[in-house]
């Protein structure tokens, strides 16, 4: 069984909500849509205070090529355009909509019937994907239409569908595959048509045996789509790691892209969103969110309208446990801590995780003992101890020389450090500064 070669760790899977059917959460009273839910320029609001909107109405236009529009997931009245503390932990501009009823835009197909045939041309499909505001659903929220338009000089030969879900606790992609396998296969075929290729590989980690079996039986009759079970290892869901695991190719350091080695990687959630956007004309207005945690009463997988406050999801899962020490949006390895439970669900919210106080508190940091466990764990082959020390000393040149921009911020180094050093915090800081220096240098040229 394949996996990537260097580094990686094996955290406790803790998939508490595996096998729990996807349930639909009730509509919120007020939905909040932050304008920057994706990588790139923030969206520009195209509604005003007091406007009436329906489910699926576009409320913000893309702010550039590297951007994505935002649609209302509820019907009601725009109450204000103000700022909200979102999952990033900062106050950002957002559109607030007071919900009344559930009126949909008339041209959205709300039926469950499977639409197999897609007669649209490549440009029409891309247009629908762009207009539906589809972004990478794995958490990074990279606009999908940008990823599907690779540079002209790169020859793509394989589409890799990321159904790895290597983050502990999260099960949303797993359940999506179990319940919507047909739609996903149609979605893959649409993406193949857009890219003009005929080979797709769906990578699934071996702990999701039922999903592997189901997908294999569904694709046995479809040519060009291959299911590849992968050995369990974190961070296999990382784009570069998955490419190596599936094809054996290594993506060169930035600014090289996966397209340079002939691969396009899309998350399985994105594939489903593409299916809905192209075949059902339904914009990205809801997503599957795993609500979980060791002391949570009822860990579950919820189909949630974007903009719903996180508190409503927690309530559905049996309320916030008293011993909660940290509330995280996403998984325990790469997720971001939430400042409070009022933050809205956005396009990249794959999970809401409540970690008990005892597990959440970081131990006191001690000195580096040069054991090189972080070096062994780094899936990018970097030397985190060196990068962290350089960052601590403000030595950005050393950090840049040692390939800091290749870091994918997976957190393997920090999780293995026996001295409990906050390696990732320092690396992130240096990455931010070095990124700024590189941008300034490029701007000068």
């Amino acid at each position: 069984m394949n996996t990537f070669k260097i580094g990686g760790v094996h955290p406790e899977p803790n998939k508490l909500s595996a096998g729990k059917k996807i349930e639909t959460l009730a509509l919120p009273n007020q939905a909040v849509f932050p304008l920057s839910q994706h990588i790139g320029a923030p969206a520009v609001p195209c509604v005003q205070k007091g406007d009436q909107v329906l489910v699926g109405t576009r409320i913000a236009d893309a702010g550039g090529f590297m951007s994505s529009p935002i649609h209302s997931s509820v019907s009601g009245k725009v109450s204000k355009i103000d700022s909200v503390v979102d999952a990033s932990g900062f106050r950002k501009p957002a559109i607030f909509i007071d919900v009344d009823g559930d009126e949909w835009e008339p041209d959205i197909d709300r039926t469950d019937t499977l639409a197999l045939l897609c007669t649209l041309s490549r440009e029409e499909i891309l247009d629908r994907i762009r207009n539906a505001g589809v972004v990478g659903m794995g958490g990074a929220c990279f606009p999908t239409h940008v990823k599907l338009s690779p540079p002209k000089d790169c020859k793509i030969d394989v589409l890799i569908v990321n159904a790895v879900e290597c983050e502990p606790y999260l099960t949303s992609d797993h359940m999506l595959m179990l319940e919507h396998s047909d739609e996903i296969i149609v979605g893959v075929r649409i993406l193949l048509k857009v890219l003009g290729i005929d080979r797709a590989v769906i990578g699934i980690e071996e702990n999701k045996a039922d999903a592997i079996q189901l997908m294999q039986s569904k694709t046995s009759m479809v040519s060009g789509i291959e299911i590849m079970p992968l050995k369990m290892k974190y961070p296999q869901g990382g784009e570069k790691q998955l490419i190596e695991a599936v094809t054996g190719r290594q993506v060169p350091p930035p600014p090289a892209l996966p397209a340079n080695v002939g691969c396009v990687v899309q998350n399985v959630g994105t594939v489903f969103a593409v299916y809905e956007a192209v075949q059902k004309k339904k914009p990205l207005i809801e997503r599957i969110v795993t609500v979980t945690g060791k002391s949570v009463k009822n860990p579950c997988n919820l189909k949630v309208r974007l903009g719903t406050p996180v508190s409503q999801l927690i309530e559905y899962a049996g309320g916030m446990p008293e011993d909660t020490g940290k509330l995280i949006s996403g998984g325990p390895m790469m997720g971001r801590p939430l400042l409070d439970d009022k933050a809205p669900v956005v396009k990249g919210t794959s999970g809401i995780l409540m970690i008990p106080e005892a597990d959440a508190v970081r131990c006191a940091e001690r000195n580096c003992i040069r054991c090189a466990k972080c070096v062994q764990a780094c899936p990018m082959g970097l030397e985190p101890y060196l990068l962290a020390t350089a960052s601590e000393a403000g030595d950005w040149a050393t950090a840049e020389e040692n390939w800091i921009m290749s870091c994918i911020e997976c957190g393997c180094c920090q999780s293995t450090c026996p001295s409990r050093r906050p390696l990732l915090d320092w690396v992130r800081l240096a990455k931010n500064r070095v990124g700024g220096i590189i941008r300034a240098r490029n701007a000068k040229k």
Partner: protein
Amino acid sequence: MSFLLTAVLVLGLTGLLLGLVLYAVSRKFKVEEDPRVGQITELLPGANCGGCGFPGCAAFAEACVKSESMDGLKCSVCKSEVMQQIAAITGHAVEVGVAKVAVVRCAGSCTNRPRINSYDGAKSCAAAALMNGGETGCFFGCLGCGDCVRACKFDAIHMNPETGIPVVEQDKCTACGACAKACPRMIIELRNKNKLDRRVFVSCVNKDKGPVAKKACSVACIGCGKCVKVCPFEAITLDSNLAYIDFEKCRLCRKCVDECPQHTIQAVNFPPRKMASPSESQQQVPATENSVEQLKAEI
């Protein structure tokens, strides 16, 4: 005996020979250094703080000697007399700068600004500022990890353990600006030292709307604009819900201090106030005739 003699002779001759070689080399490859560089370096404080924009004191001295004028060359640490001495050595004219001091523009202590979260990552304000908005509802104020304290080469800024906010020791502060540069929230500002070290400044950098700022911190600037109206010298401006006092225009009349409903504007090193009488305010305000009259008329 002859062994001893041989050893002494061999060593002695080798030493002499090498000495001659060293002498020849040092004559041949002698580096001519301007003696003024050494003189200036001796005058400089030698902290290598980088406040002047050069890698260290020696580099600054070299720049002083090489450049045509003293424009843009200023050791912020040195007193103006020292700068004049340097100018005398180089033979250029120097402008006498106004003495400045670092001012911490945040009063968000634990009591004023209750913590609603806790941060347990890397002990660095810069790292904390990247992570999220911080431990309090105020996303602009002091993060309390002490990047400014570590940046200070003169031991002039320390964390107050009670408030969790850094305090500047004005006698030690040399206004090199290292702390201001290190602060990711840009709270620290270099302001004029003024007579008797008296200063009036807005101790807040929160740009949120009034209610949001007030909820996060009991001494936050809410952008009400009362100080702007009351200032007789037009020294106060209001920009995105935040008042700012221009220290070049401020005449330290302290009218804004009394007017501020949030007690955000701080006046330091003033004697405790008695009942305000016209004669007293006249003493305290070294203002032009015109503005004093204006003040009198208002009182």
